[in-house]
Protein backbone atom coordinates (compact mmCIF):
# COMPACT_ATOMS: atom_id res chain seq x y z
CA UNK A 1 0.00 0.00 0.00
CA UNK A 2 1.47 3.32 -1.10
CA UNK A 3 1.52 6.37 1.15
CA UNK A 4 3.44 9.63 1.30
CA UNK A 5 4.45 12.22 3.83
CA UNK A 6 5.25 15.89 3.31
CA UNK A 7 7.55 17.78 5.66
CA UNK A 8 7.75 21.49 4.97
CA UNK A 9 10.30 24.10 5.90
CA UNK A 10 9.54 27.54 4.46
CA UNK A 11 9.83 27.28 0.66
CA UNK A 12 11.25 23.74 0.95
CA UNK A 13 9.22 20.57 1.09
CA UNK A 14 10.40 16.98 1.34
CA UNK A 15 7.91 14.44 0.06
CA UNK A 16 8.73 10.90 1.18
CA UNK A 17 7.15 8.07 -0.78
CA UNK A 18 6.47 4.80 1.02
CA UNK A 19 5.61 1.63 -0.88
CA UNK A 20 5.66 0.47 -4.49
CA UNK A 21 5.45 3.11 -7.19
CA UNK A 22 3.13 1.48 -9.71
CA UNK A 23 -0.26 1.83 -11.42
CA UNK A 24 -2.08 1.99 -8.04
CA UNK A 25 -0.44 5.38 -7.39
CA UNK A 26 -1.98 7.06 -10.46
CA UNK A 27 -4.71 9.01 -8.61
CA UNK A 28 -2.51 9.72 -5.57
CA UNK A 29 0.12 11.33 -7.81
CA UNK A 30 -2.35 14.02 -8.93
CA UNK A 31 -3.07 14.70 -5.25
CA UNK A 32 0.69 14.94 -4.53
CA UNK A 33 1.21 17.38 -7.42
CA UNK A 34 -1.49 19.66 -5.96
CA UNK A 35 0.02 19.47 -2.45
CA UNK A 36 3.44 20.49 -3.77
CA UNK A 37 2.17 23.57 -5.62
CA UNK A 38 2.98 26.17 -2.91
CA UNK A 39 6.66 25.23 -2.63
CA UNK A 40 9.68 26.37 -4.64
CA UNK A 41 12.09 23.58 -3.63
CA UNK A 42 10.78 20.00 -3.81
CA UNK A 43 12.84 17.08 -2.52
CA UNK A 44 11.51 13.64 -3.43
CA UNK A 45 12.73 10.94 -1.05
CA UNK A 46 12.50 7.41 -2.50
CA UNK A 47 14.19 5.74 0.50
CA UNK A 48 11.15 3.61 1.24
CA UNK A 49 10.24 2.69 -2.33
CA UNK A 50 11.36 -0.91 -2.92
CA UNK A 51 9.81 -1.32 -6.40
CA UNK A 52 9.07 0.90 -9.40
CA UNK A 53 7.51 -0.42 -12.61
CA UNK A 54 7.14 1.28 -15.98
CA UNK A 55 3.90 3.00 -14.93
CA UNK A 56 5.60 4.25 -11.75
CA UNK A 57 8.44 5.72 -13.79
CA UNK A 58 5.87 7.42 -16.01
CA UNK A 59 4.22 8.90 -12.92
CA UNK A 60 7.57 10.11 -11.57
CA UNK A 61 8.39 11.73 -14.92
CA UNK A 62 4.96 13.37 -14.95
CA UNK A 63 5.52 14.70 -11.40
CA UNK A 64 8.99 16.10 -12.16
CA UNK A 65 7.94 17.54 -15.55
CA UNK A 66 4.93 19.29 -14.02
CA UNK A 67 7.03 20.80 -11.22
CA UNK A 68 9.80 21.86 -13.61
CA UNK A 69 7.29 23.53 -15.92
CA UNK A 70 6.35 25.67 -12.94
CA UNK A 71 10.04 26.58 -12.52
CA UNK A 72 10.41 24.71 -9.26
CA UNK A 73 13.69 23.12 -8.19
CA UNK A 74 13.33 19.37 -7.85
CA UNK A 75 15.67 16.72 -6.44
CA UNK A 76 15.28 12.95 -6.09
CA UNK A 77 17.23 11.11 -3.40
CA UNK A 78 17.72 7.87 -1.43
CA UNK A 79 17.06 5.57 -4.38
CA UNK A 80 17.12 1.88 -3.46
CA UNK A 81 19.56 -0.35 -5.45
CA UNK A 82 16.80 -2.33 -7.26
CA UNK A 83 15.04 0.90 -8.24
CA UNK A 84 18.37 2.47 -9.29
CA UNK A 85 18.90 -0.49 -11.65
CA UNK A 86 15.50 0.11 -13.30
CA UNK A 87 16.30 3.85 -13.62
CA UNK A 88 19.63 2.94 -15.21
CA UNK A 89 18.08 0.66 -17.85
CA UNK A 90 15.49 3.26 -18.76
CA UNK A 91 18.17 6.02 -18.68
CA UNK A 92 16.08 8.21 -16.42
CA UNK A 93 19.01 10.55 -15.67
CA UNK A 94 19.18 11.49 -19.34
CA UNK A 95 15.44 12.07 -19.45
CA UNK A 96 15.01 14.11 -16.28
CA UNK A 97 18.50 15.65 -16.13
CA UNK A 98 21.43 14.48 -14.02
CA UNK A 99 21.20 17.50 -11.70
CA UNK A 100 17.90 16.25 -10.26
CA UNK A 101 19.51 13.20 -8.69
CA UNK A 102 20.97 14.23 -5.33
CA UNK A 103 24.19 12.49 -4.31
Amino acid at each position, binding site marked *: MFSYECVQDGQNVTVSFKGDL*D*IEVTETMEEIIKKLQPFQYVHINLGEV*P*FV*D*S*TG*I*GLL*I*HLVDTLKQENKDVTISHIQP*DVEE*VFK*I*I*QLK*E*ILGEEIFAR
Partner: protein
Amino acid sequence: MYVNEYRRICELTSSNDHSIDERLEREIKLARNIQAKLLNGFPRINGAEIQGISIPARLIGGDYYDFYRLENGNIRMVIGDVMGKGIPAAMLMILTRGAFRSASESTTSPAETLAAMSKALYQDLRSLKSFVTLFCADWNPITNVLTYASAGHNMPLFVNGKEKKIVDPPKASGVMIGAFSNQVYEEKSVKLEENNMIFFYTDGIVEAENKNREQFKHERLINILLEHSHKSVDAIKKYVVEAIHRFTEGVPPKDDITMVILKIHQESNTISFIHSKE
Protein backbone atom coordinates in the same frame (compact mmCIF):
# COMPACT_ATOMS: atom_id res chain seq x y z
CA MET B 1 -46.00 4.39 -4.35
CA TYR B 2 -42.68 6.26 -4.35
CA VAL B 3 -41.01 3.22 -2.82
CA ASN B 4 -42.33 0.99 -5.63
CA GLU B 5 -41.23 3.46 -8.26
CA TYR B 6 -37.76 3.73 -6.70
CA ARG B 7 -37.52 -0.06 -6.58
CA ARG B 8 -38.45 -0.27 -10.27
CA ILE B 9 -35.81 2.30 -11.23
CA CYS B 10 -33.22 0.36 -9.19
CA GLU B 11 -34.19 -2.87 -10.94
CA LEU B 12 -33.91 -1.22 -14.36
CA THR B 13 -30.52 0.31 -13.52
CA SER B 14 -29.28 -2.97 -12.14
CA SER B 15 -30.39 -4.93 -15.21
CA ASN B 16 -28.79 -2.26 -17.40
CA ASP B 17 -25.53 -2.52 -15.39
CA HIS B 18 -25.64 -6.25 -15.87
CA SER B 19 -25.95 -5.95 -19.63
CA ILE B 20 -23.15 -3.35 -19.72
CA ASP B 21 -20.95 -5.75 -17.73
CA GLU B 22 -21.73 -8.58 -20.14
CA ARG B 23 -21.05 -6.41 -23.17
CA LEU B 24 -17.77 -5.16 -21.68
CA GLU B 25 -16.69 -8.69 -20.87
CA ARG B 26 -17.50 -9.82 -24.41
CA GLU B 27 -15.60 -6.90 -25.93
CA ILE B 28 -12.57 -7.46 -23.70
CA LYS B 29 -12.53 -11.11 -24.76
CA LEU B 30 -12.64 -10.05 -28.42
CA ALA B 31 -9.84 -7.54 -27.80
CA ARG B 32 -7.83 -10.26 -26.10
CA ASN B 33 -8.31 -12.58 -29.09
CA ILE B 34 -7.19 -9.84 -31.48
CA GLN B 35 -4.10 -9.21 -29.39
CA ALA B 36 -3.30 -12.93 -29.13
CA LYS B 37 -3.56 -13.26 -32.93
CA LEU B 38 -1.29 -10.27 -33.51
CA LEU B 39 1.33 -11.83 -31.23
CA ASN B 40 1.29 -15.18 -32.94
CA GLY B 41 3.28 -15.10 -36.16
CA PHE B 42 6.76 -16.58 -35.97
CA PRO B 43 9.36 -16.94 -38.69
CA ARG B 44 10.20 -20.59 -39.43
CA ILE B 45 13.90 -20.95 -40.00
CA ASN B 46 15.93 -23.93 -41.16
CA GLY B 47 18.83 -24.26 -38.76
CA ALA B 48 17.43 -21.95 -36.11
CA GLU B 49 14.40 -21.68 -33.87
CA ILE B 50 12.40 -18.68 -32.77
CA GLN B 51 9.47 -18.56 -30.37
CA GLY B 52 7.75 -16.04 -28.16
CA ILE B 53 5.02 -15.71 -25.60
CA SER B 54 3.28 -12.87 -23.82
CA ILE B 55 1.20 -13.45 -20.71
CA PRO B 56 -0.75 -10.37 -19.68
CA ALA B 57 -1.03 -9.47 -15.98
CA ARG B 58 -4.64 -8.47 -16.62
CA LEU B 59 -7.06 -9.58 -19.32
CA ILE B 60 -5.06 -7.89 -22.03
CA GLY B 61 -1.55 -6.51 -21.90
CA GLY B 62 0.83 -3.78 -22.99
CA ASP B 63 3.85 -5.92 -23.78
CA TYR B 64 4.67 -6.43 -27.40
CA TYR B 65 6.86 -8.41 -29.75
CA ASP B 66 6.91 -8.70 -33.50
CA PHE B 67 8.94 -9.94 -36.46
CA TYR B 68 9.37 -8.43 -39.88
CA ARG B 69 11.03 -10.06 -42.84
CA LEU B 70 13.19 -7.52 -44.64
CA GLU B 71 13.76 -7.50 -48.40
CA ASN B 72 17.42 -8.45 -47.94
CA GLY B 73 16.33 -11.66 -46.21
CA ASN B 74 17.13 -10.50 -42.69
CA ILE B 75 14.64 -10.82 -39.85
CA ARG B 76 13.86 -7.70 -37.84
CA MET B 77 12.48 -8.39 -34.39
CA VAL B 78 11.24 -6.13 -31.68
CA ILE B 79 10.17 -6.57 -28.07
CA GLY B 80 8.70 -3.83 -25.95
CA ASP B 81 6.84 -2.73 -22.88
CA VAL B 82 4.16 -0.07 -23.08
CA MET B 83 3.74 1.93 -19.88
CA GLY B 84 0.68 0.90 -17.90
CA LYS B 85 -1.48 -2.18 -17.97
CA GLY B 86 -4.77 -3.48 -19.25
CA ILE B 87 -6.88 -1.84 -21.96
CA PRO B 88 -5.06 1.54 -22.14
CA ALA B 89 -1.69 -0.19 -22.55
CA ALA B 90 -3.14 -2.61 -25.12
CA MET B 91 -4.38 0.33 -27.22
CA LEU B 92 -0.90 1.85 -27.19
CA MET B 93 0.58 -1.53 -28.02
CA ILE B 94 -1.44 -1.61 -31.26
CA LEU B 95 -0.22 1.90 -32.05
CA THR B 96 3.37 0.72 -31.46
CA ARG B 97 2.88 -2.31 -33.71
CA GLY B 98 1.67 -0.11 -36.56
CA ALA B 99 4.65 2.22 -36.10
CA PHE B 100 7.10 -0.73 -36.11
CA ARG B 101 5.70 -2.28 -39.28
CA SER B 102 5.59 1.03 -41.08
CA ALA B 103 9.12 2.02 -39.92
CA SER B 104 10.49 -1.39 -40.95
CA GLU B 105 9.32 -0.77 -44.54
CA SER B 106 11.42 2.36 -44.87
CA THR B 107 14.45 1.91 -42.63
CA THR B 108 17.59 -0.14 -43.04
CA SER B 109 18.70 -0.78 -39.46
CA PRO B 110 17.33 -1.25 -35.92
CA ALA B 111 18.62 2.17 -34.81
CA GLU B 112 16.90 3.83 -37.77
CA THR B 113 13.71 1.90 -37.01
CA LEU B 114 13.67 3.09 -33.40
CA ALA B 115 14.39 6.67 -34.49
CA ALA B 116 11.51 6.55 -37.01
CA MET B 117 9.18 5.04 -34.39
CA SER B 118 10.21 7.69 -31.89
CA LYS B 119 9.39 10.39 -34.41
CA ALA B 120 6.05 8.82 -35.31
CA LEU B 121 4.89 8.14 -31.74
CA TYR B 122 6.33 11.09 -29.81
CA GLN B 123 3.36 13.47 -30.03
CA ASP B 124 0.78 10.82 -29.16
CA LEU B 125 2.81 9.45 -26.26
CA ARG B 126 3.50 12.93 -24.87
CA SER B 127 -0.15 13.91 -24.98
CA LEU B 128 -1.07 10.63 -23.27
CA LYS B 129 1.79 11.00 -20.74
CA SER B 130 2.99 7.57 -21.69
CA PHE B 131 6.06 5.90 -23.11
CA VAL B 132 7.30 2.65 -24.61
CA THR B 133 10.60 0.84 -24.09
CA LEU B 134 11.77 -1.20 -27.10
CA PHE B 135 14.62 -3.45 -28.09
CA CYS B 136 14.99 -3.92 -31.83
CA ALA B 137 17.35 -6.33 -33.59
CA ASP B 138 18.15 -7.40 -37.15
CA TRP B 139 19.32 -10.95 -37.55
CA ASN B 140 21.13 -11.98 -40.69
CA PRO B 141 20.54 -15.74 -41.08
CA ILE B 142 23.42 -16.11 -43.55
CA THR B 143 26.18 -14.37 -41.60
CA ASN B 144 24.49 -14.92 -38.20
CA VAL B 145 25.24 -11.32 -37.21
CA LEU B 146 22.73 -9.76 -34.83
CA THR B 147 22.63 -5.97 -34.97
CA TYR B 148 20.61 -4.22 -32.30
CA ALA B 149 19.49 -0.97 -30.70
CA SER B 150 17.63 -0.20 -27.51
CA ALA B 151 15.12 2.46 -26.53
CA GLY B 152 15.36 2.24 -22.73
CA HIS B 153 14.76 -1.51 -22.79
CA ASN B 154 16.80 -4.12 -20.94
CA MET B 155 19.44 -6.01 -22.92
CA PRO B 156 18.55 -9.61 -23.82
CA LEU B 157 20.47 -12.48 -22.25
CA PHE B 158 23.05 -14.12 -24.53
CA VAL B 159 23.56 -17.77 -23.71
CA ASN B 160 26.57 -19.65 -25.01
CA GLY B 161 25.10 -23.15 -25.12
CA LYS B 162 28.44 -24.88 -25.82
CA GLU B 163 30.20 -23.44 -22.80
CA LYS B 164 26.99 -23.17 -20.75
CA LYS B 165 27.54 -19.56 -19.78
CA ILE B 166 26.01 -16.13 -20.17
CA VAL B 167 28.08 -13.73 -22.24
CA ASP B 168 27.87 -9.95 -22.07
CA PRO B 169 27.51 -8.40 -25.52
CA PRO B 170 28.14 -4.67 -25.99
CA LYS B 171 25.37 -2.56 -24.49
CA ALA B 172 23.37 -0.33 -26.84
CA SER B 173 22.15 2.83 -25.16
CA GLY B 174 19.14 4.98 -26.02
CA VAL B 175 16.17 6.46 -24.19
CA MET B 176 12.62 5.16 -24.30
CA ILE B 177 10.18 6.16 -27.04
CA GLY B 178 8.14 9.17 -25.97
CA ALA B 179 10.89 10.93 -24.00
CA PHE B 180 12.39 13.15 -26.74
CA SER B 181 11.10 14.09 -30.16
CA ASN B 182 14.25 13.49 -32.23
CA GLN B 183 16.14 10.73 -30.53
CA VAL B 184 19.17 9.07 -32.13
CA TYR B 185 19.91 5.46 -31.19
CA GLU B 186 23.20 3.68 -30.80
CA GLU B 187 23.67 0.40 -32.66
CA LYS B 188 25.82 -2.62 -31.75
CA SER B 189 26.46 -6.00 -33.36
CA VAL B 190 27.37 -9.46 -32.26
CA LYS B 191 28.23 -12.59 -34.25
CA LEU B 192 26.18 -15.59 -33.21
CA GLU B 193 27.45 -19.13 -33.34
CA GLU B 194 25.99 -22.59 -33.25
CA ASN B 195 24.14 -23.30 -29.99
CA ASN B 196 23.94 -19.62 -29.08
CA MET B 197 20.60 -18.54 -27.67
CA ILE B 198 19.29 -15.02 -27.29
CA PHE B 199 16.59 -14.47 -24.70
CA PHE B 200 14.72 -11.20 -25.23
CA TYR B 201 12.35 -10.33 -22.39
CA THR B 202 10.39 -7.71 -20.49
CA ASP B 203 10.88 -6.83 -16.82
CA GLY B 204 7.70 -8.65 -15.74
CA ILE B 205 9.78 -11.86 -15.65
CA VAL B 206 12.57 -10.79 -13.29
CA GLU B 207 10.24 -8.61 -11.21
CA ALA B 208 7.59 -11.32 -10.65
CA GLU B 209 7.00 -11.48 -6.90
CA ASN B 210 6.10 -14.27 -4.49
CA LYS B 211 4.04 -13.89 -1.32
CA ASN B 212 7.16 -12.86 0.65
CA ARG B 213 7.63 -10.05 -1.82
CA GLU B 214 10.84 -11.57 -3.15
CA GLN B 215 11.48 -11.05 -6.86
CA PHE B 216 12.21 -13.80 -9.37
CA LYS B 217 15.42 -11.94 -10.31
CA HIS B 218 17.96 -12.53 -13.08
CA GLU B 219 19.77 -15.29 -11.20
CA ARG B 220 16.80 -17.67 -11.30
CA LEU B 221 16.15 -16.89 -14.95
CA ILE B 222 19.81 -17.43 -15.88
CA ASN B 223 19.92 -20.75 -14.02
CA ILE B 224 16.90 -22.05 -15.97
CA LEU B 225 18.34 -20.89 -19.30
CA LEU B 226 21.70 -22.53 -18.59
CA GLU B 227 20.14 -25.75 -17.32
CA HIS B 228 17.88 -26.17 -20.36
CA SER B 229 19.92 -24.45 -23.07
CA HIS B 230 20.32 -27.74 -24.99
CA LYS B 231 16.51 -28.13 -25.37
CA SER B 232 14.10 -26.68 -27.94
CA VAL B 233 13.02 -23.04 -27.59
CA ASP B 234 9.45 -24.21 -27.08
CA ALA B 235 10.55 -26.34 -24.11
CA ILE B 236 12.71 -23.52 -22.70
CA LYS B 237 9.77 -21.13 -22.96
CA LYS B 238 7.62 -23.58 -20.98
CA TYR B 239 10.32 -24.14 -18.33
CA VAL B 240 10.61 -20.40 -17.75
CA VAL B 241 6.83 -19.92 -17.49
CA GLU B 242 6.49 -22.91 -15.14
CA ALA B 243 9.36 -21.69 -12.95
CA ILE B 244 7.73 -18.27 -12.59
CA HIS B 245 4.39 -19.89 -11.67
CA ARG B 246 6.07 -22.14 -9.14
CA PHE B 247 7.98 -19.22 -7.66
CA THR B 248 5.02 -16.83 -7.38
CA GLU B 249 2.77 -19.52 -5.82
CA GLY B 250 -0.43 -18.00 -7.13
CA VAL B 251 0.39 -14.37 -6.28
CA PRO B 252 -1.30 -12.36 -9.07
CA PRO B 253 1.31 -10.95 -11.47
CA LYS B 254 1.90 -7.20 -11.28
CA ASP B 255 3.21 -6.91 -14.79
CA ASP B 256 2.94 -8.65 -18.17
CA ILE B 257 5.43 -11.44 -18.79
CA THR B 258 6.93 -11.58 -22.28
CA MET B 259 9.83 -13.39 -23.90
CA VAL B 260 11.19 -14.11 -27.36
CA ILE B 261 13.84 -16.79 -27.77
CA LEU B 262 16.15 -17.16 -30.76
CA LYS B 263 18.39 -20.22 -30.90
CA ILE B 264 20.99 -20.95 -33.56
CA HIS B 265 21.49 -24.59 -34.56
CA GLN B 266 23.76 -24.20 -37.55
CA GLU B 267 25.82 -21.48 -39.15
CA SER B 268 23.67 -20.70 -42.21
CA ASN B 269 19.87 -20.62 -42.30
CA THR B 270 16.88 -20.11 -44.59
CA ILE B 271 13.59 -18.58 -43.52
CA SER B 272 9.85 -18.69 -44.06
CA PHE B 273 7.07 -17.21 -41.95
CA ILE B 274 4.35 -19.24 -40.28
CA HIS B 275 1.30 -18.18 -38.37
CA SER B 276 1.14 -20.35 -35.29
CA LYS B 277 -2.20 -21.95 -34.42
CA GLU B 278 -1.27 -22.22 -30.75
